[in-house]
């Protein structure tokens, strides 16, 4: 004999019922009538329920907008459950693993086009367009605004969105919304504006929302100036807002890379459901160079998790809140695992004449351009120099640096900041338990003054270490290495 299940009949909880009357419309039997008495506890006027004609159809449960205002008799909530997150946030917080099918992005071949001669910010904007980005939000700030201006020109004709927001705070939250809908979006900003975006970036990371931030770094702290500095390496590596946050940050050093890395940034931001930062500096945003267009462009897909605003994606939820301690810890373990996957898979660096280098110059962005020239001149002087150029600042490409350490006798970190890049390198070395360090020296500049080629050459060739080494065999002064 098949088991029969009695369907529950409704019960009005007078303290929670606002008397909106949706159940009156929903009930085919006319069991509900508008109330006429004020509930002394809530001050509201609840509906009146007469169960005589009720056939337990259940239509009233779905009609009631108030959680537990109208409830199946079997499900009367225990008072303690009223504090439960599902009660606070609605049923949707109980995450559903069933997602609609993902529409993957498509690569579309590009015709052969002649190279362009454009400035860095334009190259990045074109990279974004070729990566399928049609949604731009931003706020004017020198020296990044030209990228936004190009987007303002072309996006309206590409059925895209360009919004000049009222501030960087508004910008990042527009990106939070757009990214949450599963669409590729971006902004151009510069250091002070990036500072303002950090709160929103923390929310985006927490809610696992993609978005590309192009930060044309300028001199700081505070208002600083509009000249190049690598002032935000610390922020993008260690300070992306509050909480357990990380994001891949890519450092370009030519207009060509501004394009290529912007395209890569869009790929990575969707791959990991995490914001990606592209770092340029004041010069890189402004200098023009030859830029070869890629062979393929991208038609974006639609991820299954997107809150796209259609029936299929109705079940999805984007949020960074997890009220219960256990749930939030689990979420953080998940994020931490994701960061580890980035560390394991996404380290990138350019190694220039490093195969036999004894002196390794470490530099990124515009200072790397000077360092590259210095390597050639040092080699002419008989000093075996090489350039190690991190392309991912976070994760620091330590996996590519470690194999070089056996032959390297000195590392010189050349940067336009107060040692922010060197700190990242030292932290990465420490995480890898490298105690046997080569000597670490540095050239640092601030405020738009950049390390010059001659300065790097002089600094390294004047280093007595090398003359000593030739005279005294291998008597290296090495920090920690005996």
């Amino acid at each position, binding site marked *: 004999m098949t088991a029969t299940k009695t369907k529950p009949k409704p019960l009005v909880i007078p303290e929670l019922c606002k008397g909106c009357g949706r159940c009156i419309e929903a009930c085919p039997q006319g069991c509900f009538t508008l109330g006429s008495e004020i509930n002394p506890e809530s001050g509201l006027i609840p509906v009146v329920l007469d169960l005589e004609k009720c056939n337990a159809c259940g239509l009233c449960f779905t009609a009631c907008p108030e959680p537990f205002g109208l409830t199946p008799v079997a499900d009367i909530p225990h008072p303690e459950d009223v504090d439960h997150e599902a009660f606070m946030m609605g049923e949707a917080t109980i995450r559903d693993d069933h997602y609609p099918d993902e529409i993957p992005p498509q690569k579309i071949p590009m015709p052969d086009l002649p190279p362009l001669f454009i400035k860095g910010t334009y190259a990045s904007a074109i990279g974004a367009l070729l990566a399928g980005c049609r949604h731009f939000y931003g*706020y*004017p*700030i*020198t020296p990044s*605004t030209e990228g*936004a*201006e190009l987007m*303002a*020109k072309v996006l*309206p004709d590409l059925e895209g969105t*360009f919004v*000049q927001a*009222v*501030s*960087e*705070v508004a910008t990042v939250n527009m990106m939070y919304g757009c990214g949450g809908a599963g669409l590729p979006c971006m902004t151009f900003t510069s250091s*002070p504006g990036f500072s303002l975006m950090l709160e929103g970036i923390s929310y985006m990371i927490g809610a696992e929302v993609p978005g590309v931030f192009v930060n044309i770094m300028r001199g700081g702290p505070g*208002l600083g100036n509009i000249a190049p500095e690598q002032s935000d390496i610390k922020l993008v590596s260690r300070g992306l807002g509050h909480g357990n946050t990380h994001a891949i940050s890519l450092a370009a050093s030519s207009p060509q890379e501004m394009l290529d890395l912007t395209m890569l940034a869009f790929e990575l931001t969707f791959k990991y459901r995490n914001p990606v930062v592209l770092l340029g500096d004041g010069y890189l945003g402004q200098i023009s160079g030859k830029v070869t267009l890629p062979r393929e462009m991208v038609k974006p897909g639609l991820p299954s998790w997107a809150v796209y605003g259609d029936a299929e994606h109705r079940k999805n939820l984007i949020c960074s809140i997890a009220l219960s301690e256990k749930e939030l810890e689990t979420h953080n373990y998940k994020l931490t695992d994701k960061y580890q996957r980035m560390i394991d898979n996404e380290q990138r660096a350019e190694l220039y004449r490093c195969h036999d280098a004894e002196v390794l110059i470490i530099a990124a962005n515009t200072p790397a351009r000077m360092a590259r020239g210095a390597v050639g001149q040092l080699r002419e002087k008989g000093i075996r120099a090489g350039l190690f150029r991190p392309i991912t600042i976070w994760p620091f490409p330590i996996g590519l640096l470690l194999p070089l350490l056996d032959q390297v006798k000195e590392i010189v970190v050349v940067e336009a900041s107060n040692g922010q890049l060197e700190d990242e390198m030292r932290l990465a070395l420490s995480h890898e338990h490298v105690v046997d360090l080569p000597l670490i020296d540095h050239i640092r500049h601030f405020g738009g003054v950049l390390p010059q080629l001659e300065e790097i050459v002089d600094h390294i060739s004047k280093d007595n270490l090398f003359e000593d080494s030739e005279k005294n065999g291998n008597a290296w002064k090495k920090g920690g290495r005996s």
Partner: protein
Amino acid sequence: MFNVSLENLVDIDLEQYSLQDYQGSTPRWCSGCGDNAILSAVQKLCRDEQLPPEKTVFVSGIGCSSRFPHYMKTYGFHGLHGRALPIAQGIKMHRPDLHVFVNMGDGDCCSIGTAHWIHALRYNMNMVAIMHDNGIYGLTKKQASPTSPKGLVSNTTPQGTYMEALNPAMVNLGVTNVSFFAQAVEWVPDMLNDIISQAYHHRGFAFVRVLQRCPHFTPTMFDPLLSNPNNILVLEHENGIKLSEAAGRIYKNHESHDPSDIQKAREYAGRHDIVPVGILYRNPEVPCYDEIRRPKRVFTPEMKEAVLNREFDKFSVDIDSSEG
């Protein structure tokens, strides 16, 4: 005869501040920029009121207009984008004896700083806020601002702006506790000087919106006002500004408006056919937050100690008795 000597007529020991005493570094604004006119009006006010430079502070945000404190030889605070008002409020709360002036641009005040602006009106602290409104972002090289007229072509609005310009007059006059709102154009020095002077003498938060030319990026924006003075409606009153005879011959379009009438002020603020210039609203009776919060009595060191001890006693634990 009348026992008159030079000493009796002029107190030669009394130090008088001259315009030079308020002139800081040489302005680097473009020639023809309206900011220069505002600077000159403000320096004149300081000289006329003999404001001691060490008792005067100019606070600004970010933008062309916000270079202002650099060009004054008073105290200055070149602050953050949109945050000039909170900085000035912080100064005023602790140093009510200082004369506080705020210089903001339209992007500064009406875009990123809007929340601070609304609440500065509600706080109604004693200070003068001057909004240099040129309807464009000049420092970042021509992007539309919230006060850009609809259709303005800029680098971020190549098809023209889509929205009606924000009307700062309506915003000011719509916020609780608004106590002074005036509108001026920078190219009529007489009226500008008068308005800024009355703003300075107002008790409470005096907000002056100054329409200001940007000769580089929007050289024709104010042409309708410059070429046809009848597009400017001068609001005069015995409690407001008085139009000089000479100015009256040029600005023939003038009406009498009692600045205590907020309904009428809102009516003028909402007009699209003309630009009202003058004091639209003034009410010195609105309570000022800095005055409300000023200590009403003196606190001796003993009283302060007692307050702290009373608070600490609530949380102190007697270890001996708890162990016993």
